[in-house]
């Protein structure tokens, strides 16, 4: 029964990882920008959920509806006003810019919210569901379903909508997309806005599960990075596959070789993938 519990824990955690990583993957895949503000966006989303719950007793699932447009506009403006200016520069330039922006956002959060850890405690608590001695916390279940829903929505957006096709087109061949009349700067801004919105929504959901502090942003960013490399860049299903694989390795590793080596194992896996399969589990060659 313990094995089933570990497996279920890993699947649920994998969906949380996918939720954390999907926006990061989109931005990296489409814009070729390693968005180092992503972790801080997630933390900011968590603070939004915390603030809305304490000020207006607004549950996090409603907060998602507020967070998505807010973060979209924030991300859109950031790309339009700042990142677009250096988007064609070598990747190190955009990396440095997002690093600087992350420092500003993170320190602003420390200034306004302090570095103290806070926890969103729902009243009454959501509890857990138990089936044949296998226990699953309801908040994780909600986050899992939401992660799957967000993944599905993004997939539909990219496949079925005009702007989604434009994003995919720019991702596949920027120059050809320009020749076809796609406004690349606008597509970049929308893709970055979508990435920020997904990060904000992930933050709202994570507020139910993890303690909130600006100091946790690097942990989220680290997980997003590993998940993207494992799953494949810019691929919607890749984030899900990468998240589940990472969680399985961590969960099984923690059980059989000890929790202290679980993180090491995940980074060993990352190196193996970078050498043997740089395009990730479901990524296409040429987009690694």
């Amino acid at each position, binding site marked *: 029964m*313990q094995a089933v*519990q*570990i497996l279920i*824990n*890993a699947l649920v*955690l994998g969906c949380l990882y996918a939720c954390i990583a999907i926006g990061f993957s989109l931005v990296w895949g489409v814009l070729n920008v390693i968005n180092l503000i992503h972790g801080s966006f997630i933390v900011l989303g968590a603070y939004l959920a915390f603030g809305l719950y304490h000020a207006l007793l607004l549950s996090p699932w409603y907060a998602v509806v507020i967070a998505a447009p807010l973060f979209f506009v924030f991300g859109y403006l950031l790309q339009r006003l700042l990142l677009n200016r250096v988007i064609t520069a070598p990747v190190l330039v955009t990396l440095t810019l997002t690093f600087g922006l992350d420092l500003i956002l993170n320190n602003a959060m*420390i200034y306004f919210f*302090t*570095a*103290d*850890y*806070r*926890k969103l*405690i729902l009243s009454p*608590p959501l509890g*857990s569901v*138990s089936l044949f001695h296998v*226990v699953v*916390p309801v*908040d*994780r279940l909600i986050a899992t379903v939401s992660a799957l829903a967000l993944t599905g929505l993004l997939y539909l957006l990219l496949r079925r909508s005009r702007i989604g096709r434009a994003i995919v087109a720019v991702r596949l061949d920027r120059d050809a997309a320009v020749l076809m009349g796609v406004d690349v700067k606008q597509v970049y801004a929308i893709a970055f806005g979508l990435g920020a919105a997904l990060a904000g929504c992930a933050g709202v959901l994570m507020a139910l*599960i*993890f*303690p909130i*502090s600006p*100091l*946790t942003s*690097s*942990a989220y960013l*680290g*997980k997003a990075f590993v998940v993207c490399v494992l799953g494949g860049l810019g691929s919607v299903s890749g984030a899900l596959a990468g998240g589940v694989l990472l*969680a399985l390795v*961590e*969960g*099984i*590793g*923690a*059980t059989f070789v*000890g*929790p*202290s*080596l*679980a*993180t*090491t194992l995940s980074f060993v896996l990352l190196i193996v993938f970078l050498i043997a399969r740089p395009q990730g589990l479901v990524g296409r060659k040429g987009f690694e």
Partner: protein
Amino acid sequence: MNRTFFARCTRLLPVLAMSLAAAAPLSRAAAEDVIRFGAPLPITGPLAPEAVKQQQGYNLWAEEANKAGGISVGGKKYKVEIVYVDYQSSTPRAVQATEQMITQDNVNFLFGAFGSGAAKAASTVSEKYKVPTLAATASSVQVYDQGYKYLFGTFTPNDTLTMPLTKIIQVKVPEVKKVAILARNDLFPLAIAQEMEKSAKAAGLEVVYFEKYAIGTIDHSAALSAIKSLSPQWIFITGYINDLLLARKQMVDQEIKAPVVTMIAGPAYQEFIDGGGQSAENITSASWWHPAEHYEGEDIFGSTANFVKLFKAKYGSEPDYGQASAALCGALFQMAIEKAGTLDRDKVRDELAKLDVVTFFGPVRFGPTGQINSLDPPVFQIQGGKPIVHVPRCHQAGRAEGGGELVKRLFRGART
């Protein structure tokens, strides 16, 4: 070209004016008689929240000392000035920062870097320059067993936390036979977990699980599932607030129950109690000091109650043991300097070594290695959103009222 040069100079004027304005207090400070205390702290980086707490303790003491006119040295009053240098949560930089403060900032005395690891590393420099150093947050014996003369610390060894805890739990919850220990793989949390393992084994308890988790772990479900399968009666987890809030939440999520759940060092902080909510109830812990203690001291703060009052007035929150220890270090320096009647480092060092006083923090006496050996750290349990302290020594007045009842309640109903 001249116009351009002129324009550049004009633009620089405000910068120059601001620099002069910023430098003015420094020159005023230099004109006064001041004693400079160096405090290397991790003001940025992952340990930044701890640095803020340390600063609060040091600043409160400096403010109180200066309000009283300063430190009296041979009949003359000296103002207190604390020089902070950020070592960015990096131990090698803590060593550099300490050297910089001694050689460039000309500090008279030093406070130790944060935690056992950095304090030990930085102490090599202060020892080399023979600068008396008071470490506010270093508890590991390994910090003090280097044969250093100028290093003193206000935290007792880690086993002084785990031994009394084990004894009390054995008495109050005799059904405890199996212990599971999960430790953050970090200097202090791991050291305290190892002491717990020794204390448990010495008391005849079976340690059924002992594992470390990596710094930055954001999921404990696998470790907790393994613990659940072993059905221990005592679950002991070490880490910092973030780790312990997460572990506690996952324990509740996975319906893991044990008669005794102990966590070190989170529950000593109000943030943990607030963040844990109902799930923080009945968790036991131990720390070096608690605001609920009652000491009448000879130091500048006078009593625990007065220290807590001053702290609350300045910062609007209850002090924790780290903040109190930082303020204590300042108060101890003040006592030693006043007793020495000079700023001579060797004489102040000798007075520190000879100290045998009661302070708002408790009785202070340093052992031959420089580590304090006079404190009985309190063991406490969170009940009704408040830590209920079990004070080991009966002479620590003030806990007598309802004390017996508290002890009876303590550790009972700890099923979580």
